[in-house]
């Protein structure tokens, strides 16, 4: 069984009078342990697909299986639980809590589910993860005292704290220089190969996509396989992709 299986997913935004179709029948499957790049230009439906893959949004129609469970029709609370236990998020702008220590950032997701863990165990787990991303000596540093690369590594540690099978990275290198980008991407590769964590990189940058073993292109709401590499590079527009 694949980790992710989506079948015939449609997503239509209803703006009152007009209905805007964004995803028009997307089907794809991602196996456990894969490292996949999801590429597409602005307005291609890439962000919408990512939101659905991340259980932040529900498809209008179609089915979405995550880790053997149909998640396209479950309630808001259940989706929160799925996000907490199955998916680790890494964002372009890190999204760290202001004025909170690195340790606090990593422990934060545990507040919502891991009621059975004691404060001490939560702490140990967070420390271990921060050591693994190479920040063992910066446990008490706040985001303002960390560099961009370090902040992103804190975010990765936070994404991993619940041992999720899936890591969803939305433009993880968008705010980083090329050197730290390389570091972060290497870290993803290492997590993928050593821990067997499935990684999905959402990007418009072909250099980033090259680190993945499989590239999925999306254009105008449908999956487009076999698109020439050059064309994808042309399409790389600056800025984030807005929804729809």
């Amino acid at each position, binding site marked *: 069984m694949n980790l992710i299986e989506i079948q015939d997913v449609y997503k239509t935004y209803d703006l009152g009078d007009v209905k805007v179709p964004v995803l028009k029948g997307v089907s794809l499957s991602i196996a456990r342990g894969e490292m996949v790049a999801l590429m597409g230009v602005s307005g291609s439906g890439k962000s919408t697909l990512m*939101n659905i893959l*991340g259980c*932040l*949004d529900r498809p209008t129609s179609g089915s979405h299986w995550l880790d053997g469970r149909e998640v396209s029709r479950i309630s*808001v*609370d259940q989706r*929160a*639980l799925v*996000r*907490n*236990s199955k998916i680790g*998020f890494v*964002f372009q702008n890190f*999204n760290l*809590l*202001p*004025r*909170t220590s690195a340790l*606090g950032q990593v422990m*934060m*997701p545990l*507040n*919502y*589910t891991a009621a059975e863990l004691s404060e001490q165990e939560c702490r140990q787990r967070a420390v271990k993860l921060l050591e693994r991303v190479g920040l063992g000596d910066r446990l008490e540093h706040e985001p303002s005292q960390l560099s961009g690369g370090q902040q992103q590594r804190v975010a990765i540690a*936070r994404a991993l704290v*619940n041992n999720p099978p899936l890591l969803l990275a939305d433009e993880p290198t968008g705010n980083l220089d090329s050197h730290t980008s390389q570091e972060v991407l290497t870290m993803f590769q290492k997590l993928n190969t050593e821990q067997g964590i499935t990684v999905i990189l959402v990007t418009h940058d072909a250099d980033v996509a090259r680190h993945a073993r499989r590239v999925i292109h999306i254009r105008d709401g449908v999956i487009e396989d076999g698109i020439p590499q050059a064309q994808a590079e042309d399409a790389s527009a600056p800025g*984030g992709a807005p*929804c729809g």
Partner: protein
Amino acid sequence: MSRTVAAALVALRRNLLRATLTTLGIVIGVAAVIAMMEIGNGTSTAIQKTIASMGANTLLVMPGTAATGGISYGAGSIMTLTAADAEALARDCPSLGVTCPMVRARTQIVYQNKNWVPMQICGTTPNFLTVRDWNNLDEGEPFTDQDVRSSTRCCLLGQTIVKELFGHESPVGKEIRVQNVALKVVGVLARKGANMMGQDQDDILLAPWTTIKYRISGTSATTTNQSANSAISTAVNTLNQIYPGGNSETSNVYPVASVSETADKPVNIFFANVDQILCAANSQPEIPQAINEVTQILRERHRTKPEAPDDFIIRNMTEITNTLSSTTANITFLLVCVAMISLVVGGVGIMNIMLVSVTERTREIGLRMAVGARPRDILWQFLIEAVLLCLVGGAIGILCGRGCSSLVTKLWHCPTEPSVPAIIAAVVVSATVGIVFGFYPAWKASRLDPIDALRYE
């Protein structure tokens, strides 16, 4: 739950200054409520004490009415109360503290070349001073129970009489003459001022009731000036002054009771009768019970038949006391209302800041939702933040309020009273304010769409 509280604390600490300023509204509100309640309670107690010293807790037992041929002679026209009644009441009524019999006279008093007719000449026992809360003498000593038993010729004078007869001289040890009886002044009463009806309470001469009764008046109370009476005529009947031409045998304004009437309504006449008995109830709420007890005991002692009306009248000052204490209660209530308004304003301040905080932390909310916070987790977090702000504000407010009221006591000697209900109310109200005004921002935060919230700039 404990983690949510911890998270809320961390979030508040991230913006300590703002949290402090937000709490200020609640602090001021709670402090105002507490200070108002304490000052109000203190004032009300002080006023009640003042009223008590004016005789609010006292009951006045007067002899009943005699009536002949359907015409009443007014209160006090039969003589049924005795000094023994007063003692019996003090002994047998649990809700009465002390009692004293009173014998009244109105006559001229003379010292050297000056004379004066006091408003009140009271024959009583030393208990009178306790009943009227008048134990602090300016000079000298009160007369004693021994003086009462031996009808010693001594008296206490009120300030007005001292001023009229002695000027600036000290009267203690001097002798004044009342109806040609020399009374030695043993003490001077403290100034009490006018009573609630505007009468000068200091225009009073107190003496043992036996002295007044057996040495001076020789009869029961009359309201006329007996000295003037005796100067004009030797006749006892005071009607001579109203109808100078008549004499008591031929022109009697009251119908004379017939033999059968007298037989029908026998009236016991005690030769040791007193005009009034003054009783002090232990406390104001016990007055109705005290009235019942006095009625029962006096009816028993006077052997009144069950169907017969009381042969005495009981008066109390409940109405005046109630009016005054309800006035203070109203003022306290008003002040507390004003203070409550400031609490509500403080609550609106909290809502304001929480709304700002929700907007400012939209991204954080989105992130928390993305990593698995359910809407209700977000709701709780913000609600707990608001309630914590209010509770901390309430706690500081209680301290400030207490400090404020003790400062008021220190600086202006304004009486205050610590009030436990005020503190409980303040805590409950501040928690309620936190929940009520924290709910909307928290609810708004929990309704955010994680996708939009994450992208919020």
